[in-house]
């Protein structure tokens, strides 16, 4: 089990927690999956703030799979590994999506990654979302700004892969 892309497998070995789910996403599953993952990572994540950030990231990604997938199964690949004295997190989601969703997501992630100031960009996305009925991009922006994670993506045909990565500070790890 060594996929975790796009592009660069960051956590090939030494995973403390690795969970790969392939399933038909439903809203009723989100809480249970969050709880399952938390039960696995909390023993390795001492800092409650880091643990809270992680739960937020997981929740937003799981909801996006429910909201935007056009076919089953989807994949959700969760990994935490040691990196030096700290922990490195990588989460990959993969799903099929409508063309307009793919275009919108690509534009949002490109803008997000080009932003010099994550907080200022987040504030801008928040302000813009007030006038949008759907697809505000708040979930992805929140993962970046509040979850303090980096996002990359890959689109092949109608298949969208999002990779979320971040480091949890040494103080947070056992």
């Amino acid at each position, binding site marked *: 089990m060594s996929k975790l892309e796009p592009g660069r497998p960051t956590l090939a070995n030494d995973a403390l927690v690795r969970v790969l789910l392939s399933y038909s996403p439903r*809203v009723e599953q*989100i*809480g249970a999956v969050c709880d399952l993952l938390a039960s696995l990572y909390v023993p390795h994540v001492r800092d*409650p*703030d880091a*643990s*809270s*950030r992680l*739960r*937020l990231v997981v*929740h*937003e990604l799981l*909801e996006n799979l*429910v*909201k935007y997938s056009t076919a089953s199964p989807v994949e959700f690949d969760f990994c935490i590994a040691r990196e030096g004295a700290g922990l490195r997190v990588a989460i990959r989601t993969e799903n099929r999506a409508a063309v307009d969703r793919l275009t919108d997501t690509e534009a949002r992630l490109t803008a997000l990654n080009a932003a010099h100031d994550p907080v200022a960009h*987040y*504030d801008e996305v*928040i*302000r813009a*979302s*007030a006038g949008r009925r759907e697809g*505000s991009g*708040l*979930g992805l922006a*929140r993962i970046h*700004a*509040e979850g303090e994670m980096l996002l990359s993506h890959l689109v092949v045909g109608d298949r969208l892969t999002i990779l979320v990565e971040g480091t949890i500070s040494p103080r947070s790890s056992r």
Partner: protein
Amino acid sequence: MNTTQLAPFVSDNFSCTPSLARQKLSIEFTGSGDMHAMTPLSEYLKRTHEVATNLGLLEVACDFRKLTFMNSSCFKAFVVWIDSVKNLPAPYKIRFQTDPTIHWQRRSLEALRRLAINVVTLEG
């Protein structure tokens, strides 16, 4: 229900309970603001805004101390509400009461405060 009344909303894992005293409305939010809560919360905040403007309230306090989680859709419902309030000629205040041990609240609510620093205050 007329335009000056706000009823409680209760579902399996999310509730909003209002109370009114001295021109100040308090709403206690409990449970988890997830996908199930999104539509009712959005409607509830629209209704809250109607009541607050019709009664000429000075402040609406949102008690988050028993709100364990809020997803981005519920977060957006607050963005829309705050945006409506800040564009009023004489906006009422919105005060969030938080629990510092519920860590997402500080990050998320600080972002809401930055959206309307003259309207939103954080407590806790």
